[in-house]
């Protein structure tokens, strides 16, 4: 059980991969927290007060002090609750972990979005090509059960989008990116990650996520007609 370091609140929505990152981090550490569900179409005054710059979820509030940006929040959680470390000890390895987490956010997520939620087919094809390139780098980086070694680390938590949300998107829009043939290690890692005893309790319902993406895809295609 994690040490009690005061009141922890997490502002978020159940479907967001970024919110789930923080939730998984808290759960892995065994930290008690209160989840406050936001309506993104009608953001609460409190959320806007706590994250005036980006006005987004997740926001962690620890003893009244707010923090935004999921990767920043995860490092903070890792420094306050020292059990189940998410980052390695050695400075170079820590830098690599930060590099790959950033890589996921900046080089994997945008092309996946482009490959799925763009009206223009040419753009979608370009997105698919870029996604495959990016995933190949991750495939080559995976050397153990998890990116973090034998236990889940910050890169695994960041890559949760690829393990759970990407397959849901693929199903919703009829895309094929993360295949066993092209990415055997990443595919196996996805199964390990989403079936991990803590992670699986903290993912949204798959059919709801697929439904959400189907609706989003349909509205983009309809808007372009």
């Amino acid at each position: 059980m994690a040490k009690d370091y005061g009141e922890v609140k997490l502002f978020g929505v159940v479907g967001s991969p970024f919110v789930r990152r923080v939730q998984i981090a808290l759960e892995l550490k065994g930290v008690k927290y209160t989840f406050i569900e936001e309506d993104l179409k009608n953001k609460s005054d409190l959320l806007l007060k706590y994250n005036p710059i980006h006005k987004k979820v997740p926001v962690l509030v620890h003893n009244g002090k707010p923090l935004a940006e999921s990767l920043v929040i995860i490092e903070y959680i890792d420094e306050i609750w020292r059990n189940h470390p998410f980052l390695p000890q050695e400075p170079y390895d820590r830098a690599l972990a930060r590099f790959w987490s950033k890589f996921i956010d900046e080089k994997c997520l945008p092309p996946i979005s482009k490959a799925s939620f763009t009206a223009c087919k040419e753009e979608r094809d370009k997105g698919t090509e870029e996604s495959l390139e990016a995933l190949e780098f991750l495939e080559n980086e995976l050397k153990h059960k998890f990116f973090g070694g034998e236990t889940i680390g910050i890169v695994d938590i960041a890559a949760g989008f690829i393990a759970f949300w990407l397959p849901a998107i693929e199903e919703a829009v009829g895309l094929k990116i993360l295949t066993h043939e092209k990415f055997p290690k990443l595919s196996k890692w996805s199964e390990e990650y989403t079936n991990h005893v803590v992670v699986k309790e903290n993912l949204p319902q798959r059919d709801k996520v697929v439904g959400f993406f189907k609706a989003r895809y349909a509205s983009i295609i309809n808007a372009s007609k």
Partner: protein
Amino acid sequence: MLTECFLSPIKGTVFLQNWFCFSSEFSIPSGDKVEVLDFWASPFCARVKIALEEKGVKHVDREEHDLFGGKSELLLKSNPIHQKVPVLLHNDRPLAESAIIVSYIDEAWPSNPLLPAIVYDRAQARFWADYIDKKVFEAGRNIWASNGEEREVATRDFIEVLKHLEEALGDKDYFGGDAFGYVDIIAIPHSAWFLAYEKLGAFKVEDHAPKISAWIKKCLQRESVAKVLPDPEKVYQFVLYFRKMSGLD
């Protein structure tokens, strides 16, 4: 010119077989050989050099002379994923992404810490570094890489970013408080490009963000900053040259 925020990696020349450069299978280094793959105008490279100077770490800066089509083999091998500067080579172990490199420098040479001691303040520092990374250079580029009405919009957006930074700085001497630190290092190199933005956007940073303006002057008195930052006039000429080459003028 390919500093961190300019262009995406060159397709078709991905050195996948060299990706191992980013593996942590290198042996623990002894002695200290520190090199920076560099470009004089890049604010991202400047961050790394300022951090090394602050720590008193001797380093060799290797200027990439032709980032357009003649990138050095060392650069392509050391940063196969992004193929950009800066790259830090510490005893031949490469690292890319300037904010991550500065964090690494702080941890590898722990005396004279750049990040705050209190965990919450450290997290806030990382938040602001992330904000500066995502917003400042791109907002500036939107000014100099555009014309007419597009440029007016870009100028307004840039001023919004400045105002957020002004608020974050508040009445403190530095972003971290009393001492020059991590966020200052991440932010100050961008000031070398402000003259170019001001001239092209027809505005003055001082008018919209007087505290930031004063903070810039204070930072420039610091030896590490004065030594590393390029002359804003030279940067402005470089931007004009780049505009001409890109057919914007």
